[in-house]
């Protein structure tokens, strides 16, 4: 056990020395690995932030019901009664005059509204269905929409949450694309490690040859290279975390400004400690994998 630990310690030390022995090469490899991990990590964070934004908005699910322009008071009252039945106290009536008044309140609209010969806006209802579970909402709202559409003198029913669903679909596609991108970059990372380790093995050919002849096992010979790959990958992961944090810090200002222009509260979320650990772990694992493949193939030439 002690000897086992000592061997690993020695191999790890050797890997660190080899990494430090060629600082420029190491730096370049780290950059390549770091960038390969930064892009998916950054994409993940942006998508995740947007997803949360979507979920925040999905809370306000509304159905807008527009009456026909020629709907009479009595007909409107009829709809009121029906709404009271399906969504008690969860609806609000917006008379056409009030809607017009509100439109006038918008800057720049006053003249346009004034130039209209008559009020073009219909009477409307805003319905907020009671306590729908966020995931069940789209289907339930769809049912409600169909039902209301069939009522007399109802011109149009609009699902205000439709954009949330489109947004969700968009996020799902984004995630899928990101997953594919991440897979490609992971393969790239393995390839980069494969190549650096192959060069390392060639550079240590004399040592490997001698070690083999005096009784070194393949495990002994491979071990420092495995550590090399894992350490390089993990360091690349750490670099990626730094790059992502830097990118977020640079974006925070402009994103805040943009959100303010839309009157929204939105900020890209930052990397959590677990996510930094995941990045480092991912880098380490992929690096180790690349090293493993590379050493196994490279050592064959010594047989």
């Amino acid at each position, binding site marked *: 056990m002690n000897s086992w630990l000592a061997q690993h310690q*020695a191999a790890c030390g050797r890997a660190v020395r080899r990494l430090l022995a060629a600082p420029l090469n190491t730096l370049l490899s780290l950059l390549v690995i770091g960038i390969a991990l930064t892009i998916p990590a950054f994409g993940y964070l942006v998508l995740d932030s947007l997803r949360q934004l979507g979920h925040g908005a999905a809370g306000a699910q509304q159905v807008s019901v527009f009456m026909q322009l020629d709907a009479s008071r009595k007909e409107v009252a009829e709809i009121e009664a029906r709404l009271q039945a399906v969504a008690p106290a969860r609806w609000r009536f917006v008379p056409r005059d009030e809607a017009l008044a509100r439109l006038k309140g918008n800057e720049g609209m006053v003249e346009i509204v004034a130039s209209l010969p008559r009020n073009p806006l219909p009477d409307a209802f805003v319905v907020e269905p009671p306590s729908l579970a966020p995931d069940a909402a789209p289907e339930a709202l769809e049912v409600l929409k169909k039902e209301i559409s069939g009522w007399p003198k109802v011109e149009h029913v609009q699902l205000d949450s439709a954009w949330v669903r489109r947004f969700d679909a968009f996020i799902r596609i984004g995630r899928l694309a990101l997953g594919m991108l991440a897979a490609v970059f992971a393969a790239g990372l393995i390839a980069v490690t494969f190549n650096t380790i192959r060069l390392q093995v060639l550079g240590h050919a004399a*040592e490997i040859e*001698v070690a083999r002849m*005096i*009784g*070194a*096992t393949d495990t002994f010979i491979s071990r420092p290279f495995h550590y090399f790959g894992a350490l390089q990958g993990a360091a690349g992961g750490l670099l990626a975390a730094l790059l992502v944090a830097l990118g977020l810090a640079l974006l925070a200002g402009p994103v805040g400004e943009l959100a303010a222009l839309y009157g929204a509260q939105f900020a890209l979320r930052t990397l959590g400690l677990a996510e930094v650990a995941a990045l480092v772990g991912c880098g380490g694992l992929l690096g180790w994998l690349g090293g493993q493949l590379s050493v196994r193939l490279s050592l064959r030439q010594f047989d």
Partner: protein
Amino acid sequence: MIVASNLTKRYPGGLQALHDVSFEISAGEMVCVTGHSGAGKTTLIKLVSTIEPPTAGSLLVNGQNLAALRRSALPFVRRNFGLIFQDQKLLFDRSALENVLLPLEIVGLPYREAVRRAQAALDKVGLLERAKANPVALSGGEQQRLAIARAVVNRPAVLVADEPTGNLDTESAEQIFAIFESFHQVGVTVVIATHDLGCIRRFEPRVLRLDHGRLL
């Protein structure tokens, strides 16, 4: 210790380096393998130290038939041998001491114990003061002695050397042979491929003479 039966080695390209060679070396013996250049001395040494497999014939080391061994078991057999190569195969990216440490790292000796033993081995060949020197800075004789220190540091049962005095002057060669003799005296089996007849006369070992790949 070592039993070779009908060893034959043919290299790709048709060169027949060894032809039906049989011999036995018992534990603690000192044996010199001699012969003209190209007689198969180096090949014999490589086969005996399990670096190369024979084309035909069998080799028993400590009663183990090497042909029957799995490839993964080979390193452990090789640890029975202390090898001294014709071209020494020292590593020039590290100090003399670190060269000697390599076999101990391979068997996983704790670092401090390893350094102690490596220093003892260097002392034995008279190189303790040069422990920190890079092998490049050593003379031919010193390099050869460093190679010996690396070969013996793991206390192998068999010391195998291929032309250890090839490029050395008489005085250095005598030093080298004296070191071999001292190991022989403490019970180590020593196998040396050489054409240095002076040394053979002086130490009177058992001699295996090769001629065109055949044992005379």
